[in-house]
């Protein structure tokens, strides 16, 4: 599961190896992004180094989710420049995607499929081995009875755990997590924090948006504030 350990073969990778030494993993400068006609990001600037764990906080609707989605290459950039994992997002929003792992507010699970089916599918799309998948499953306590239960029958927290397992199964270099703690029970939260610390230690970069300041604050190495579509040091 060590990001740096695994050779990912994508256009972006080579480019990215070249730059890793010289450049920050995430470098946004004065990024403006619009959804519909609304500027969800209004000149956001953020620099994140390798193996940092950054906490984004801020009021509802400030732009945290939008920022994470932008880093994942899901949001087109109107103005400014953004480079993530060495990929210039203005030029190519596709190349970055194999390198990032995003957990949004939604879980991205298929209700009709069982827990095992879902994790298997999402693992496969990023070429995870069945070993990694199994590891992810029982790390999040989904190995037992639950693995055969359709996701539609799960409790909220169990769904969240499943979604996390899907993310873990892929070896991302940049983890983008949107309120990952929401819905998880005490054990799940500890497990999650441990996983993130491991990933960071192994050279991954983690950006977490959360409203649970005590919890996420203790996890983060740095806290920034998102307000009105802009980023401020906090």
């Amino acid at each position: 599961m060590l990001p740096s350990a695994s050779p990912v073969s994508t256009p972006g990778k080579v480019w990215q190896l070249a730059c890793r030494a010289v450049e920050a993993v995430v470098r946004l400068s004065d990024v403006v992004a619009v959804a519909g006609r609304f500027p969800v990001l209004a000149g956001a600037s953020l620099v994140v180094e390798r193996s940092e764990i950054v906490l984004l906080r801020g009021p509802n609707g400030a732009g945290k989710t939008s920022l994470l989605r932008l880093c994942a290459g899901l949001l087109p950039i109107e103005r400014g420049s953004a480079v993530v994992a060495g990929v210039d997002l203005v030029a190519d929003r596709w190349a970055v995607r194999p390198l990032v792992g995003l957990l949004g507010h939604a879980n991205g699970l298929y209700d009709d499929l069982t827990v095992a089916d879902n994790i298997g599918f999402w693992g496969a799309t990023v070429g995870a081995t069945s070993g990694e998948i199994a590891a992810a499953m029982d790390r999040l306590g989904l190995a037992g009875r639950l693995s055969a239960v359709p996701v539609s029958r799960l409790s909220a927290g169990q769904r969240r755990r499943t979604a996390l397992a899907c993310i873990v199964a892929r070896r991302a270099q940049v983890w983008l997590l949107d309120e990952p703690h929401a819905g998880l029970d005490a054990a799940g939260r500890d497990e999650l924090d441990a996983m993130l610390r491991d990933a960071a230690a192994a050279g991954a970069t983690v950006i977490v948006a959360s409203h649970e300041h005590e919890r996420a604050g203790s996890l983060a190495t740095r806290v920034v504030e998102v307000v009105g579509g802009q980023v401020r040091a906090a």
Partner: protein
Amino acid sequence: MTIAAPASQTTSSRSALRRPTSTRFSRGLGTAVLAGLVTLVVLGLAVSPDDRIQGDAVRNLYIHVPSAWLAYLAFIVTAVSSAAYLFRRTRSLAWDRIAGASAEVGVLFMAITLVTGSLWGRITWGTYWVWDSRLTTTAFLLVTYIGYLAVRGLGGSHHQRARRSAVLALLAVLEVPLVHFSVRWWRPLHQGQSVRNGELSDLMLFTLFTGLVTFTLLYVWLVLHRQRVLTMDDMVADRGLDAALAERQREGGQ
């Protein structure tokens, strides 16, 4: 997902449920049914005359019509006992099981009607199926009650099932008069109300009547047994719940 009760559980429940579904009464009834079927065969195939137009094909009547009417009866019984379930003062799962059993038997009879009918059609109309009102409505009636049985299978607690299906039965039964009167309404190719209009000779009528009685007895017999089997199914399910409860409570332990 269903609860797979441990082997011991199921076997124990089986032993508890290992009383036969037959009683002296139902055994008596069964023999009566057999006797009736024999007489019906004799009357229908040997004694009763053949029709001046239809020839021997008319003998189909003695199965076709009674089974159709019994299907009606079955569906009406389903509706009535469903109503009895919904009515607070008489609410009991027994009614629900009778409704279910009766619907199952009704579907069986309706299917028999369809099959004998289309065979008959092959002989008299030269085709298995025509887009006649009664034929089609009959087919739809059958589908409706298959749907009813499907709804019974949706799961949930016994009372959920009962409530849901009872309501459905009360709606579905509305189609029965539709089938019955359809011939009056449009594109009648199918036989009209020939029986009540005295188009049949006395002996034919008598045979038909025998068929009717026999099928009624057969219906009662089948419903009795099916209803008892359904009761046992519910008992087994309850035992399954007990096992599941124990398992669920153990979750806290570790």
